């Protein structure tokens, strides 16, 4: 036993102990995972990115190098620029409203009300449904006929004058899609905020109450600052989700009417699979990836600094 233990100690790769108590494993241990990652993620991504500089149709072997023509086209393409505008509008709407509602829901079910556990499940339920299913469900709700779906409900409560062509009106369709996404994902934000709220020490609130702080003051000076990590995660996730939104749009409007709900993701899909322009599509994908990375980087930098100051 002693010999074995000595041998192990002799051959063991150095490990260091961290102040926090855990050990830092040697990089060697990560090699198998890194190899798989390189093979499954990095290699295909790099090879795929190469297509952005070609005119490949997506099928067959014929392709020629076109330099940065695809990128030049992207920045002069009205459809792509319109899609960029739609992407940003959707992202802002989703980040602000989804997280706002998520926070309100979390605060609501973090109270002592009896049905809080049931409400948590109800609010979170849409998250576990496939986005495609949710999209088809809402497509039914958005039926423009006056006697169907949401329009029928508005009629029934005497608000028939508010009936709309929810997905067919080019000015309204994008907000209808945004509402569907928010409806589905607000519960997800709620769970993250709820986790943050669970970590706020109750004694802080108690002592603040003793000092005479009201509900608003306690939220502003205790809860909100302590929720900073939850805000960081929620904002990050919803931003990336908004910038790469695809499923709900394809299922509900296919980017229409016209180009009214096209996003960068649907444009790159259509360029690749409908127009047969895989090279150009890859250029859109590359720009989207860089854009998402840049936004996320800036965002996390700001939000982390907010956590530190808190």
């Amino acid at each position, binding site marked *: 036993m002693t010999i074995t233990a000595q041998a192990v100690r002799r051959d063991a790769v150095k490990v260091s102990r961290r102040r926090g108590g855990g050990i830092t494993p040697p990089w060697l241990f990560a090699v198998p995972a890194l190899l798989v990652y390189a093979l499954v993620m990095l290699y295909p991504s790099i090879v795929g990115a190469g297509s952005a500089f070609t005119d490949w149709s997506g*099928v067959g072997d014929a392709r020629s190098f076109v330099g940065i023509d695809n990128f030049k086209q992207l920045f002069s393409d009205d459809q792509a620029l319109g899609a960029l505008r739609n992407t940003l509008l959707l992202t802002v709407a989703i980040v602000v409203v989804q997280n706002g509602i998520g926070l309100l829901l979390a605060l609501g079910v973090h109270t002592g009300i009896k049905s809080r556990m049931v409400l948590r499940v109800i609010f979170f339920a849409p998250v576990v449904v496939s986005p495609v299913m949710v999209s088809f469900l809402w497509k039914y709700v958005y039926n423009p006929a006056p006697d169907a779906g949401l329009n029928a409900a508005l009629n029934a409560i005497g608000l028939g004058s508010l009936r709309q062509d929810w997905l067919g009106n080019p000015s309204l369709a994008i907000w209808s899609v945004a509402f569907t996404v928010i409806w589905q994902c607000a519960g997800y934000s709620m769970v993250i905020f709820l986790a943050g709220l669970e970590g706020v020490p109750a004694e802080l609130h108690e002592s603040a109450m003793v000092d005479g702080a009201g509900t608003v003051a306690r939220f502003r000076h205790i809860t909100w600052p302590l929720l900073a990590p939850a805000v960081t995660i929620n904002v990050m996730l919803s931003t990336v989700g908004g910038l790469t939104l695809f499923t709900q749009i394809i299922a509900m409007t296919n980017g229409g*009417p016209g180009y009214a709900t096209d996003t960068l993701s649907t444009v790159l899909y259509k360029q690749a699979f409908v*127009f*047969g322009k895989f090279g150009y599509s890859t250029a859109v994908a590359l720009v989207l990836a860089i854009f998402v990375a840049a936004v996320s980087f800036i965002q996390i930098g700001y939000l982390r600094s907010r956590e530190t100051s808190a």
Partner: protein
Amino acid sequence: MALEQSVSRRRLLQLMGGAAAVGTLAACGGGNGGSSSSGGTLKVIGAGSQEAGLRKALDDYKKAHSDFDFNLSFSPADQLQTALRAQLAAGNAPDLHAVYPGNGSAMSMVQLSKANLLADLSSQSWTQKIPTGFKGAFQQDGKTFIFSPGTSVLGAIYNKKAFATAGVEIPATWSELLSVCDKLKKKGIVPIALGAQTPWVTQLIDYALVPGTVYAKTPDFDDKMIAGSASFADSGWADAMDKYLELQKKGFFNDNPNGTTYEQATSMVGTGKAAMAIQVSAVLQAFRAAAPSPDDLGMFPFPATDVAADNWIPGGVVVGIAVSAKSKKAEQAKKFIEYCGQPEVVNAWAEAVACVPVYSDGDAKVDPVLTSFLPYLKDNKAVPFMDQRWPNAEVQPTHFAVVQELLGGKTTVQGALKKMDEAYRKSA
């Protein structure tokens, strides 16, 4: 004081616990339940609209050939563009798959044969029977690459009871059509059901009108477009789109066509809530399924002008099948296509999908509701579906989008046609 106790991100993630993880997996997971083909069987992927004919041909062939088996699945038109095209790109295409005739789509015969993805069928005897006027739909550079059972016509599918209620007859001219629509509307019946939220439906009214407004006067319009001496904006396409909008402005469509789907429009005509839908004959079965009785429905050529002689019809070769050039069972697949080329199989398939057989041995049974279209085919007054001669896969989706924009009031006819011209001039 207490703010130093802020929750760390690590702790927060721990607190989030399993529920969020489950949610993430459920929401983000995308199980696709892929299909697999058993060994020795022919893998076949067809278009939804060809199901009745293709399935019957495969079943009949299997009965006659005990060593033959197949694994068959179908995709709606839009999914063919993605699922099948991705398989083609990855080099694992099914042995036999749906291909659109002519050019104009990413899954068209010309686009795929140019990429060397389709097997040459020219040596098969049935290819000699393809009528000269249809060769462009089947052949590229003199080689035949697809089999298709026949031609589908495009016109107005109408509900006979709705017409009887309004006391109207089948119109023969554009003015008569407007009058019929007016009478139907006054009876509280939607004259024309339009499900323009479904992209491919948007094109059908233009397709029904341009044979009259463009091709009757300029039969070589496609050649002129290819030569660059014509454009959509300076042609009868503008008349066609003006007429499309006229129907909308007069309230002859259902409310909110951009928010209405093909399925909803089909149901409206089947139940008599609407009187007509401009559609291809290949979808007649879907309309019949939506009606209390199949005999409630009929079909007539949609009049585009007030000069009866100028009212040509659109009639295009329907979606066909082709053998993947990379198939290891190419010989087996080719034998099946050779079987499909026999006149009796062509007839049976054509009857199943309500189209007119591409050639016949004289025993062809054409769906009775199509008889009013046959004289046009005989007199060469049928124009292939316009996209089949467009040079790239971008014009057709652009057409879908600009029609939705027109219906939504977001563009003008000239703006819409300018976009189509721009898409047309892009390289193939």
